[in-house]
């Protein structure tokens, strides 16, 4: 099992969700996050005071998936979240040791 987490542009969230659910991903977790990458921030000006805003708002999605599905999930996220402009985000894949469905107590693949 793998945990796929991706940082994407906020307005791409719906497209990514659709792409994932249409290919059988059973659930994802979404978090509003801030961060910086190669995309530069912007400056804000309030009367005489100028502030550089380094951290840009992004959305982080996390999906726990079966090993066989990982490549297609990555492909789906890539396809849906890409604009081709700087700041499209990144996808991280990590090993997932255990999963438990709290309601039934199922573990491993059964719980995905």
């Amino acid at each position, binding site marked *: 099992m793998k945990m796929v987490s991706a940082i994407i542009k906020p307005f791409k969230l719906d497209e990514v969700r659709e792409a994932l659910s249409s290919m059988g991903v059973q659930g994802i977790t979404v978090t509003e996050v801030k961060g910086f990458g190669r995309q530069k921030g912007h400056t*804000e*000006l*309030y*009367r*005489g*005071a100028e*502030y550089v*805003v380094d951290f840009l708002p992004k959305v982080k999605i996390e999906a726990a998936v079966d090993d066989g599905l990982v490549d297609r999930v990555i492909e789906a996220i890539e396809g849906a979240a890409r604009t081709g402009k700087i700041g499209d985000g990144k996808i991280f894949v990590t090993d997932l040791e255990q999963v438990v469905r709290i309601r039934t107590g199922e573990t491993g693949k059964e719980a995905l």
Partner: protein
Amino acid sequence: MKKLLATLLLGVGLAFGGLNAVAQTTTEAPAAVAAPAADAAPAADAPVAAPAAEAPAVEAPAAAAEAAPAEEAVKETVDKGDVTWMMISTILVLLMVVPGLALFYGGLVRSKNMLSVLMQVMVVFSLIAVLWAVYGYSLAFGGEGLIFGNLDKVFLKGITPDSLAATFTAGVMIPEYIFIAFQCTFAGITCALIVGSFAERIKFGAVLLFCAIWFTFSYIPIAHMVWGTGGYLFDKGALDFAGGTVVHINAAMAGLVGAYVLGKRIGYGKESMAPHSLTLTMVGASLLWVGWFGFNAGSNLEANGGTTLAFINTLFATAAAVLAWCVGETLGKGKASMLGAASGAVAGLVAITPACGTVGPMGAIVIGLVAGFLCLWGVSSLKKMLGADDSLDVFGVHGVGGIVGALLTGVFSAGSLGGVKGDDYSIASQLLIQAEGVVITIVWSSVVAFIAYKIVDLIMGLRVSEEAEREGLDITSHGETAYNR
């Protein structure tokens, strides 16, 4: 005021034939004729005791008093329209303070200090209102001193619903109670304005103590000098229709001195201190604009043609200043901002305040344009030169705008430039008087403020602890949070 009150002459043995000739009033004048005033008290102090039952709506007594010159023997009338307008105006000025000014300022601070600013504005206003009733009104409008009034009316002694205050038209009176209330809101908003300068770092108690001291020794004397009969600037002929010096320059200097004395906020110039809600700031600025019609047009004390002049000037000057600020920002930084438009509105309102009763609408537009550009400079370049952390730019907007307005009042009041002053009006000599008023206010307010801050510092300290400042004053000073999720 005394001079004004002196027109409330209590007549003894009136000659009604003579009276009718001068009684030009829209109220039921004939009804009043039957109402002789029986009181033989000296004319100077005595609030008018209404003649018993006959004509409650009309103050009959005007009159043929002993020593009074004949031209003062004008019939006194109270018009219900004037009274209503003054009550509405008073409410409008209150609207400027809470919620207007409170929201304007509140939106500009970081969210952790939102409540502290709302609290400071609301409680300072309330404190000053009570002090106004206790001694403020009497000291400001109670006598004919050069600098202060007197203590004859402490605790509003001797004032009844029948007491009258004069307006700018001979013989047209308003109840003294509404005059007291109207002026009370001016004192309150002036002190509340100062809050913007030391926001985000001052102790709550220190704000209140400072305001009480400064109100007593700066607001009251300046108000008396400018508006009170016998006051130094009043007698000189300084033009300050609704309080450019008394309210705005006065408060701005107290604020600027406070910004120096308290020092900069922790992290000033390094950390982001961006406004937490420009939406609320826009709401506040808009309420200020609406309320300012009471402030400026209400200052005419009647509802007549002069009132509408102040009204229309308040509309146009403000609009011009909004445009000027936006153009200035666009030329300077490439973008016109919401904060800029809101600040421009306030700058225009401040600048037209002293001028609104004597300049014409085109003069008002010019004043607004100049104020918009200069206040933009005030909150950016000038602010950097001054080197003080005037948190919400009280000096940049109210100080610069106040000075611009006070001086340009001297210019655009001239009949040749659309103002109401006649041929004998000299722009140059009026400018000198205006400048004198500005300088006196700047020096007086600064000195009083400096001493007041030092006294408060000795008694309780001015600044909150560094930890409290970092955590935010909402929790550390008031034990609550503005936005719970």
